C-alpha cells in the first residue's frame, strides 16, 4: 500500500513555490503627489466614523492611481481607524482590487463553461504569448492587464473576451493579434 505521503508526493507537479513569495510590492515606495494625497484625504474624510465604508472607500481610492499600493492602504487604515491587516485582508480578497499597477485596458478572458468548451484556453494561451504576461500581470508598456473571469453571461457568443468596456465574441486564435491592434 502506498503511504499517504508517497501518494501526495507523486501527485505534486513541481518544486517551485508559485504565487506565495513575499510580494515585492510589500516594500513598494510609491509616493503620492500632493494632489493625489488631497483626493485620498477627501475620500477618507467623507467616510470617517461611519460603519461599513471600507469597501466603498477602497473602491474610490483605487480610482486615484488605478490600483491600491501599500501607501494608500496604510493611509486608509489610519484614516478610518481600521487595522492595516483588515484592510489588506479585504483588498486581497476581492478581485476588483489590485495591489499591482494596472494597464490602460483590462483584458478579461471568460473561462466559464461555454467559453471553455469553445476554446477559451487556446485564446488565453495566445494572449499570453502575444503579450508575454501571465493572468494578473500587466504589460511593460502599461497598456494591457490580463485577467481570466468566470461566465460573463454572453454564452451565445462564446468564446468571449472583454477588453475595457467592449465585449468580443466568437473569437478564434487567429483573431487575437488583430484584436489587440485595435487598442494599440
Amino acid at each position: 500500500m502506498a503511504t499517504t505521503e508517497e501518494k501526495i508526493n507523486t501527485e505534486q507537479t513541481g518544486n517551485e513555490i508559485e504565487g506565495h513569495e513575499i510580494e515585492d510590492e510589500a516594500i513598494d515606495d510609491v509616493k503620492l503627489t500632493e494632489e493625489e494625497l488631497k483626493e485620498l484625504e477627501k475620500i477618507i474624510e467623507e467616510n470617517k466614523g461611519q460603519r461599513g465604508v471600507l469597501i466603498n472607500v477602497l473602491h474610490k481610492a483605487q480610482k486615484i492611481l488605478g490600483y491600491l499600493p501599500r501607501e494608500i492602504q496604510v493611509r486608509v487604515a489610519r484614516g478610518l481607524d481600521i487595522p492595516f491587516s483588515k484592510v489588506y485582508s479585504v483588498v486581497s480578497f476581492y478581485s476588483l482590487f489590485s495591489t499591482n499597477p494596472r494597464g490602460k485596458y483590462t483584458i478579461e478572458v471568460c473561462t466559464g463553461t461555454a467559453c471553455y468548451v469553445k476554446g477559451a484556453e487556446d485564446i488565453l494561451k495566445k494572449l499570453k504569448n502575444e503579450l508575454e504576461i501571465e493572468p494578473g500581470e500587466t504589460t511593460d508598456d502599461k497598456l494591457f492587464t490580463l485577467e481570466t473571469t468566470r461566465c460573463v453571461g454572453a454564452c451565445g457568443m462564446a468564446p468571449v473576451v472583454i477588453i475595457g468596456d467592449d465585449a468580443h465574441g466568437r473569437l478564434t486564435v487567429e483573431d487575437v493579434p488583430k484584436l489587440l491592434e485595435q487598442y494599440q
Partner: protein
Amino acid sequence: MLVTVTIDGQEVEVSEGTTILDAADMLDIDIPTLCYLKELNEPGACRVCLVDVEGDANFQPACVYEVTDGLKVRTNTPQVIEARKRVIELLLSDHPFECLTCVANQNCELQSVAKQYGIRDLEFGGERNKFPVDDLSPSLVREPSKCILCRRCISVCAEIQEVHIYDVIERGFGSVAAPAYNESLMDTPCITCGQCIMVCPTGALHGQDDTQKVWDALADESKHVVIQTAPAIRVTIGEMFGLEIGSLVTGQLVAALKRLGFDKVFDDCFGADVVVMEEGHELMERLESGKDLPQFTSCCPGWVKFCESFYPSMLDNLSSCKSPQQVFGALAKSYYAEQAGIDPEDIFCVSTMPCVAKKYESQRPEMDSSGHRDVDAVLTTRELGEMIKQIGLDIKKLPEEDYDEPMGYASGAGVIFGSTGGVMEAALRTVYERITGERLEDFELKSVRGRDFKEAEIDLKDGRSLKVAVARGTGNARRLIHRIMNGEAEYDFIEVMACPAGGCVGGGGQPIYSGRDKWLRMVEDRAHRAKGLFEEDGQKEYRVAHENPFVKKLYDNYLGDPHGERSQELLHTSYVDRQLYTHEERYSDKKGEPMKVAKKNH
C-alpha cells in the same frame, strides 16, 4: 428560558441559545473541534464538529448551532463519523506531513483528531500550499503552510491584545492567516507576546528555539555559564512533568539546572528586587518633581514594544529601568564578574523565562551596557522542560536545592513579579515604607467597575495619596491609556503586563495545552499559578526588596545609591518610537532578508 433537546437519545435541559456543542458536553458527549475556543473564537470555520440535526438536509456545525425546544440531534451515526473523517482528510490534504519533526508533535490538535478518527490514508491528493517560513523574529516562528485557518490567532491578537497583526489574506485555496502582505512579523508592530502560539492548534505558530545555543555554551569549557530563573518558571515547569497546575517546585528546579551543568544558578527575582529599588526611587523622584506621571512599569518587553508602536507619546512615562532579566544580565557581567574574579567576556548568561518576548528583549541592540550582551540566550519554560527531559531527569524526583550566592536570594517582593499586580505591590511595599516609615499592610487592588483593570489608592499619611492601576493584556492597557488621555482618570503609577489573565504566569513561553476549553482553562490555570507565587512570597523571611541583605550589599559595595549614577548607566535604558506600519522605523537589520523557504515537501 429552558428548553429540552435530545442528543443521541438522551434528553437534556439547557437554556435557549446554548450551542449543540455545549449541550452535548453536559451529557459528556465529546464533539471534536479545531477552531472553537469558548468566548474567544467561535467562527464555525473548521467544520470538524458536524452533527445530524433532525429535519435539516445537511449536517450542521455543533459549535455555532443554537438549540431550540424539542431539537433532536445525533452525533454518533456512522454517517456523521464519516462526514467528520472527510473534513479531517480535507484539512490534511493541504497540510505538510512533517509531524515527526514538527514542534507541535504529540501536542497538536489536528494530529490528535486525525488519530482519534483513525485516518490512515488520504483519498485527496493534489496541490498543497507552500508558504515560506517566517523565522526573522527573535521570538516567534510562523509556518503558514501548517495553518488550518481556524482564526484563533486572529481572535486573540485582535480581540484580547488589540494589536491586530493577523487576518485571513487572499482567498480560496491560497488563503492563510497572516500579517498583511504575508510579510515577516519583524516588519509588523507585533509585540512578540506569543499569545497566538498559545492558541494555535497546530505547529503553524511557535517560539524560536534557542536550546542549541545553550547546549553549545554548556559544552564550551572556556565559558562560565550562569542561569537566572524568572519567578513564573517555578510554578509552571512542574506541569511539564505532570505535576498539578501551579505546583511550586523552586528547589527541584534549581537541582535540575545544576545537573544540566550550569556553573551558577541564580534567581531572576534578585534582579526583580533591584528593579523595585530602581523603579521605586524613580517613582519617588517623579512624585517630588511632578514630572512624567503616571509612571508606567517597564519590566514587560511586550508592553514596552506595544507602547513604542502604538503610544510613542507615552514613552517618557515608561520607567527607564530595564526589566529584571536585563538588570540581572547587566549585573552578572559587571558586579558578579568582579566579585567572582571572572572575565565578563567568558560569562555566558542564560535566562529562563515564561515568555517569548524576552527573547526579543535580550536582542535589543541597546541591551549591552555592561560592555557585553546583557543576556546571551533566553529559554522558555517549554524549552527548559525539554532540556531537562533530554538529560533523563524527572523534576518530581529531584531533591530541593538552593540558589547560589550572591544573586540567588530574593525577597518575597521579587517573587510576586510573575503575577499581575505583583510588580506594583512589590514596588509599593518599598516606596510606602520609605515615605511613611511604616510597613504596607493589606494592600488590595480593586476592580474598576465594568472595566478590565484594577486600581487602588494608598494614603501616604502626609496629605498625599498615591493612585495606582494595573492592566493585564494590551487590549486592557489600551483602554486604560485612553481613559488617561481623555482625562477620565488620573494615576501616579501603572503596571502593565502584556499577557492577559494573570501576567507572566500565562506568558507565551509557558506549557501549551490542547483542547477547545483551552482559553478558559488557561485563564483558570493562571490563577492557580499566581497562587503558587504568593505562597512563596508568604514563606520568605524578607518580604520587601530593600531588606534583602544581598541587595543591600550590592548597593553598598558596588552601585551606590538607587537610581544613582552607576545604576543609571548600567540598569536604565531608553525607548524608541516605532510607529505602526511605517517603513522608516524598522527594528531589524534583517529587514529585506528572504524568509526561509520550507525545506520539506518539495
